[in-house]
């Protein structure tokens, strides 16, 4: 129950109004831990604010419009990548310059290993 205890201590310092009820859950069984975590997540969410802009990655059309205005090294390349240990592809965007730097770094690493 290490996780639950740690969580409880942090919750004790939080401003969440459900704290007393959550404290009682600290001695509950393992299945309740997940409920606790859900409650914790609910507390951690910021209050809904309609004026706040939702952050999103640019669409391919927006990226292309941007790319048309800038020098090649500043262009953005977006593609779907499947991270190691997962089957779910993730959309990632890089600047052309960053891709060059990453490629150079990997080439150097490979050269060092092969030496």
């Amino acid at each position, binding site marked *: 129950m290490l996780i639950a205890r740690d969580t409880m201590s942090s919750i004790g310092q939080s401003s969440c109004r459900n704290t007393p009820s959550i404290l009682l859950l600290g001695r509950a069984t393992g299945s309740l831990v997940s409920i606790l975590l859900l409650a914790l997540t609910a507390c951690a969410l910021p209050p809904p604010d309609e004026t706040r802009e939702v952050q999103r990655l640019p669409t*391919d059309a927006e990226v292309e419009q941007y790319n048309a205005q800038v020098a090649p090294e500043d262009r953005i390349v977006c593609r779907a990548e499947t991270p190691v240990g997962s089957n779910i592809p993730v959309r990632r965007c890089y600047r052309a310059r960053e891709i060059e730097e990453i490629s150079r770094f990997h080439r150097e690493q490979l050269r060092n290993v092969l030496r």
Partner: protein
Amino acid sequence: MHRLFMIKVRDWARTSFLSVIFFTQWGVAQPVGPLWADNFQPEQAEILSAQARLAIEESRYSDAEDWINQALQINRALNGFYDSSQLVLLDQLLEALLLQEKWEQFDQRLEYIGWLNRRVHAAEPEKLAMELLRQSKWHLAAAGVIQRSQSAWYLIQGKYLNWQAVSILENSYGRQDPRLAPILYQITLEHYYQSLLSERRGTTSYEFKTDGKAIANGWMSSRNESVERSYRIGKDNLQRIHSLYTEESGTANPTAALLQIYQADWEFLHGNSSVALELYRDAFYRLLDAGIAESEVERFFNQLVKIPAQTLQTDWVAPQSGDRLSAVEFSAWSTIYPGAETPETLLNSPFRLLPDGTQSIQVELKLEVSANESPGRFDYGVTGLDILSVPVKDDILTARIHAEVPLVKFRPRLVAGELASHEPFLLDYKFAGE
């Protein structure tokens, strides 16, 4: 006194000598043609430009090039180096250079036009944008002429110029102005051409890594990835065009339905037949909701329409009634873009390249709907092809007809909102120049 007299005699002799030389030279040079003195006569530039136009029509491209260059010199002498009146002459020069396939000079002039345009129209964003669109058309014209991977370079550079024009006009008109729609549609068409590219070397490199013509190794993405990106950008653009016209008017109107048909065409062209059918059907009923007579809507979906449509139609125009009597015409653009029709832009002067003796044939086609193995999908394409007229009968030409003609895409026919096959029809097919 004596000394002064001697100087006067010497001056007189020198002046006389120079005068004699001058008049002799003038007399010798006179019959050859226009001289430097003519450079300050504006009519001379117009005469040279007209001569060049005639020379282009008579396929004397080199003469045309020389005359336009002279006209440009006169124009600069009269109007200075930074005058927009040069742009008309430069257009003519580009035409002459393109017809001769002088790529190096063509590129230099294109670059010069780009520089001049930004300098001349720096304070006039709308003119700057219009000129960028014109430069883009030159790139498109070049993309259809030049062979192999360089075509991708012209296509992508032209597309980027269109995007630059969009950005400039967004600043002037705002992001939600319908005047942006034709340019966004042109970019969508360019993505369609890009997805048809038979020679894809350098495509990704030109899009991201370099503005130069040298392909950067290590910057290749797969054909699927590149085509998928083009599909998504086209879809985003069509969605945006739709929102430009429909954002404010909440009521049903034919424009929204017409624009939805373009979205359906895009899905159909990319193999998403079930999505396309839903959009076509929805547009069918939206047109009825917008108050269009059912008979007109039926006739609209009964037409033979080549897709992608070359222009964006936003107003409802009642389709003509009656059976189709004349053949559908299709002029293939380039062997680099199999299945693409010659862009409408390139049918007008100065972008129109003169007839090059390409072959024309006539076929009778049958388009039919058939079920696809995947649930909800359908196939719609050529199931019958009869060759009616060919210039010469040979196996190579027959094989070429059977390979190329089925690539022409038509909008599916709807009857009462349901898919239907077309009656056999005639197609006049003009091959692309080699």
